[in-house]
């Protein structure tokens, strides 16, 4: 039997894997296309339909919680006159952090020529896009009157008013808007050659035309590839500062205030690393079910997971350093409010959450010092989820601790989330999963043309 008719798994059995383990040692271009595109042209499986149905319930839940919020106002939340930033802000920071990893993988790993990026960048970018879009919703809901959100934009109005340029919230608006626009453009650019592949492989006229329109007449000529590559690399170079800017600005949302615990100059880089950390954890969490559900084990291998686990380990170390720097800065500042806040973090009513966060973010990734855990699906998945939980705890604790324990002891207060806080958070998950499942059925979850390029570089295809 010739190699062209074998599946990726059979190719591994026959030829073994390439030296860095990223794919079968022999992998014809056609097989790559077939392996990735199979999930799209297959009839939807029962599992997929169930998952889409369940996540759609989440979307409905999200819709209902937004509707109730708009009718009743922010009073349905646990926020009060002291702890004014609750779940909405924490969810925003968490989701936008997750949204950082896709662009990191796409741009930084592309520019640093990390080959293993090719198989995972597509769904990581999709994850980025959906996470950033969901993140964009939360600040609008947080302000309570989203229909006035256009006030943040500088437009020529009859009030002759401009936004307050000194406010980080305005920087935030620009950072999110730029980031979402960039993510869409970059994701779509990477898709064009694959859309053309799908156009050519599709059987029905409707599917052909639908993919054809978005393929923008791509025919794979050398001239197109040349233009494409210069454009794609230029975009990637533009993306790197954006990844850094977006979460730096989120950090400045906090650091530009005068509250204890939000004062350290380390905040912007600390937030950027935290974002990449949580984003990578989410990619790991998503990779394990995806490669199984779409049958991509021959293309997304344990070596990919190994590489991501190392990044998680690095992230965990830097996060632990950042936490200890916070404690040091609190002590070193000599301020009573700062010192008392540190004690409150450890031993206050939210203390148990803080210890949990330290365990999830600092301790759990330390497992990845051992190769056995970096290549074990179960430990990878568990640590991925733990880091996501830990990073979410960090986002909510940074709001609750500081605002509940500010400068004035007379205004010390306590924040307890309500059922609507939880339902909205749950609903945002539903929306994320719903979009992601639709994506996996309509668009190649891995980048066909980049894996072909990888196969060429690895010598697996000629």
């Amino acid at each position: 039997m010739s190699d062209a008719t074998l599946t990726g798994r059979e190719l591994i059995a026959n030829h073994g894997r390439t030296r860095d383990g990223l794919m079968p040692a022999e992998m014809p271009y056609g097989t790559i296309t077939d392996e990735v595109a199979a999930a799209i042209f297959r009839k939807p499986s029962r599992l997929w339909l169930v998952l889409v149905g369940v996540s759609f319930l989440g979307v409905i839940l999200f819709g209902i919680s937004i509707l109730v919020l708009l009718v009743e106002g922010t009073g349905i939340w646990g926020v009060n006159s002291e702890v004014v930033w609750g779940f909405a802000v924490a969810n925003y920071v968490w989701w936008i952090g997750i949204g950082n990893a896709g662009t990191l993988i796409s741009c930084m790993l592309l520019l640093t020529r990390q080959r293993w990026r090719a198989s995972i960048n597509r769904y990581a970018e999709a994850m980025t896009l959906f996470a950033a879009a969901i993140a964009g919703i939360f600040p609008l809901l947080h302000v309570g009157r989203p229909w006035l959100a256009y006030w943040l934009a500088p437009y020529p109005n009859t009030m002759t008013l401009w936004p307050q340029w000194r406010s980080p919230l305005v920087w935030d608006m620009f950072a999110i808007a730029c980031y979402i626009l960039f993510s869409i453009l970059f994701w779509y650019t990477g898709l064009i050659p694959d859309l053309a592949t799908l156009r050519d492989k599709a059987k029905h006229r409707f599917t052909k035309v639908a993919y054809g329109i978005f393929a923008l007449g791509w025919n794979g000529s050398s001239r197109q590839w040349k233009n494409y590559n210069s454009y794609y690399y230029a975009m990637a170079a533009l993306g790197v500062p954006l990844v850094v800017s977006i979460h730096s600005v989120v950090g400045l949302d906090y650091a530009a205030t005068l509250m204890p615990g939000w004062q350290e100059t380390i905040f912007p880089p600390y937030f950027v690393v935290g974002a990449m950390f949580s984003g990578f954890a989410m990619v790991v969490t998503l990779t394990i079910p995806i490669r199984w559900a779409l049958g991509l084990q021959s293309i997304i291998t344990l070596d990919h997971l190994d590489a991501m686990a190392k990044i998680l380990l690095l992230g965990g170390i830097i996060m632990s350093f950042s936490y200890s720097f916070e404690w040091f800065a609190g002590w070193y500042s000599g301020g009573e409010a700062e010192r008392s806040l540190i004690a409150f973090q450890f031993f206050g009513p939210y203390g148990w959450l803080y210890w949990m966060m330290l365990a999830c973010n600092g301790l759990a990734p330390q497992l990845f010092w051992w190769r056995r855990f970096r290549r074990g699906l179960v430990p990878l998945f568990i640590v991925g989820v733990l880091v996501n939980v830990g990073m979410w705890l960090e986002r909510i604790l940074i709001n609750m601790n500081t605002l509940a324990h500010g400068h004035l002891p007379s205004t010390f207060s306590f924040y307890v989330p309500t059922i609507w806080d939880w339902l909205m958070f749950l609903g945002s998950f539903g929306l994320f999963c719903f979009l992601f499942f639709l994506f996996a059925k309509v668009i190649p979850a891995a980048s066909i043309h980049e894996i072909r390029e990888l196969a060429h570089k690895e010598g697996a295809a000629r």
Partner: protein
Amino acid sequence: MAQLFSARADLFLRLGLLALVVLPLTMAVSGFAYYRSSYYTGVGAYVQQPVPFSHRHHAGELGIDCRYCHTQVEKAAFAGLPPTETCMTCHSQIWTNAEMLAPIRASLATNTPIRWNRVHDLADYVYFDHSVHVTNGVGCSSCHGDVADMPLMAKAEPLTMGWCLDCHRDPAKNLRPESEIYNTAWEKPADQRRKGRALLAHYGIRKDHLTDCSVCHR
């Protein structure tokens, strides 16, 4: 393989992309124009009243002072609308049977005030004080136009926040001497710049805080 798209498909795609730019731009420009036009601000549109009271006749031709009817303008935030009795100071003697004035007589007989329709209606979150303006060199006509030449009342200015701020940022260009406050036909002299600066000093106006939010939004 047969061609998927006709030769014209490319044209439609390009037109679509063009529309993606042109349509939002057109909407933005139209919106910009609409919110500044009298369709939206209502400048120059006469408002129907229960009695067709003519400011041109009373304030212009007869020369009745603004303060004869709008009695509180120098003392209070609201300039005041005259009670029916003010109308009757004259109309109990002249035009006593005029058809046009029937609602006024009915109002007096039944002791129910006339419901005039507002022409200059600011949003509820705006604090506006007439007295502080007329006692500091801002004349009636700066905001209300040449009322003595209006047969029925209409807005002369858009009363948008930008329009208010235009003067609050630089009041000197509109200030007039105390003697001219109630002269609705007043026009700026050629050397308004210089006179305006002198008037700032005369009225003791400090510009620094005139554009603070809390000046108008309390």
